[in-house]
């Protein structure tokens, strides 16, 4: 009966008002945070700079198309979006528990799951606006400067970056629930960030060397399980999603690996679904732990 009542609550207007109020509060609060503004401007500046100066590697200075801009920007976005996600997420629960505002909020008729949902939606909106405005305005400027414009791939690049940011917000929010000190939550979030970007890469090389050998990896013919293992890293999921869809990146992958990206056993939608799972699982863990947590 209680389960059924909980299900019925999904349709409760009051619940959605509470969630949207918390989300709105997070949006206002975080857009007054200078770090968020700084990173938004950085996204914008980077897309323009990379588009113009990125080709300097190829000894010419002129505007690149959107597709090539994506290829060059991947390296930056791979770090910047997760960093923004971590900045937004790591302190959202633990700081409010420490300063006492969570105690006040939870004395109101609001469920802890609603607090988490509202916070996540609010923070994700902040990240989305930041990425969409930053990369979007950059994209518009670039498209005015070049002749051949393929918007669909650039849209996918922006959308997938937003989803990747959601993953990092979700993970760092989970640490924000687990830890009782802001510093610990930040350390854990930053560790995960480095784990999935640096440590993972070297660990995968080590695994390759120790199991099937480096030659097969160089030939782009590692065993299937090796690709499957990569899917446990959201950054690799994001990269694979882009490699499956963005032509220059696909060409680059072919040149490097000598194989079609389709050797991955999944398609675009499966990649997106797995990224969504990466968002959902930490949120579910957060809800379970937050409900058990004493607020003191």
């Amino acid at each position: 009966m209680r389960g059924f009542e909980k299900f019925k609550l999904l349709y409760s207007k009051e619940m959605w008002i509470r969630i949207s109020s918390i989300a709105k509060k997070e949006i206002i609060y975080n857009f007054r945070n200078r770090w968020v503004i700084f990173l938004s401007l950085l996204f914008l500046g980077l897309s323009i700079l990379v588009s113009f100066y990125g080709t300097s590697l190829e000894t010419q200075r002129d505007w690149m198309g959107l597709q090539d801009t994506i290829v060059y920007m991947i390296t930056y976005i791979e770090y910047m979006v997760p960093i923004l996600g971590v900045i937004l997420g790591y302190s959202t629960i633990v700081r409010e528990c420490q300063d006492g505002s969570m105690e006040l909020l939870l004395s109101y008729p609001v469920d802890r799951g609603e607090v988490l949902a509202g916070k996540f939606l609010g923070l994700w909106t902040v990240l989305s606006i930041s990425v969409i405005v930053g990369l979007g305005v950059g994209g518009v400027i670039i498209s005015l400067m070049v002749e051949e414009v393929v918007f669909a791939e650039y849209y996918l690049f922006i959308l997938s970056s937003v989803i990747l940011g959601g993953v990092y917000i979700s993970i760092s929010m989970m640490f924000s629930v687990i830890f009782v000190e802001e510093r610990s939550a930040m350390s854990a979030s930053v560790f995960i960030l480095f784990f999935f970007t640096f440590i993972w890469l070297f660990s995968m090389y080590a695994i390759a060397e120790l199991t099937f050998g480096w030659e097969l990896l160089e030939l782009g013919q590692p065993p299937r399980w090796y690709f499957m293992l990569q899917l446990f890293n959201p950054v690799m999921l994001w990269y694979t999603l882009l490699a499956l869809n963005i032509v220059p990146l696909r060409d680059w992958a072919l040149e490097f690996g000598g194989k079609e990206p389709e050797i991955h056993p999944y398609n675009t939608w499966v990649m997106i679904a797995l990224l969504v799972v990466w968002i959902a699982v930490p949120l579910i863990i957060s809800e379970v732990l937050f409900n058990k947590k004493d607020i003191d």
Partner: protein
Amino acid sequence: MIKRFNGFEAVSGLDLKVERGDIYGFLGPNGAGKTTTIRVMIGLMKPDKGSIKIGGLDVDEERSDIRKNIGYLPERVSFYGNLTVSENLEFLCKVKGCSLGTVDVLLKDFKLEDQRNKKCRNLSKGMTQRLGIAQTLIGDPDLLVLDEPTAGLDPNVRRWVKKKILDLKGSGKTIFLSSHVLSEVQELCDRVGILNEGKMLAEDDVGTLGSKLSLKDRLEFNIQPLKKSLELVQNLEFVERSRIEGNKLVFYCGTNKKMDIIQKFLDEDMDITDFSVKEPDLEEVFVRLTAGGQ
């Protein structure tokens, strides 16, 4: 109700009842378990044993419904520093499902209109406390739970807060007030429960408890000769805990015996340069309760 933290029993078998319309004083020193009890009442913590019912509803099962009818002022009230006073109140109104018109009413009632657009991180402690009490009235709840509402405030704000609490009682609210200041509880409350080390030491009407405990005043004298004055009071049966602290004679006695003692000092030609009388404090209550075996 029992609440433990890592094996330590912060609240041990607490059992209390608050009548509708009363101001209930929850008195105890810091670390007695008052805030923990309140947090369990509000549903911020789960008890290890026992349950709490508010208006007939179980806190654990009907948390959301109960919270609609409670206004809570935490001991360390904190708002979103990056939001303004009115943005904070608007947010809390929405969470409680109240009309945003409430914000203007509260800002006016609590004389916070001038602070409306000020960010909460820039508010003084007194203004934050005002805002804290104001937010307890969102949704016009029947029960107000105020945890140390006057702690750390300057005398003017403290007086204002006490008056507001009495006004709220006048408007029919039930108030659960935690404090470690005996005089404050005596001044404001109808009933009092005294908590120490997680256990309820005594619970009664404020007046009854005071007379039952026959609380004594603390007297301090700057007097010469000091040793002789000590010997004198030690021989008086209605004087307790007499000692010399620094260059002062300190002892406890009943309110109606103060003049007798002063007369005795004067009869002995002792030189009194100054003296002070302190009303019974929490320490005195605990001495009475533990010594009296009550």
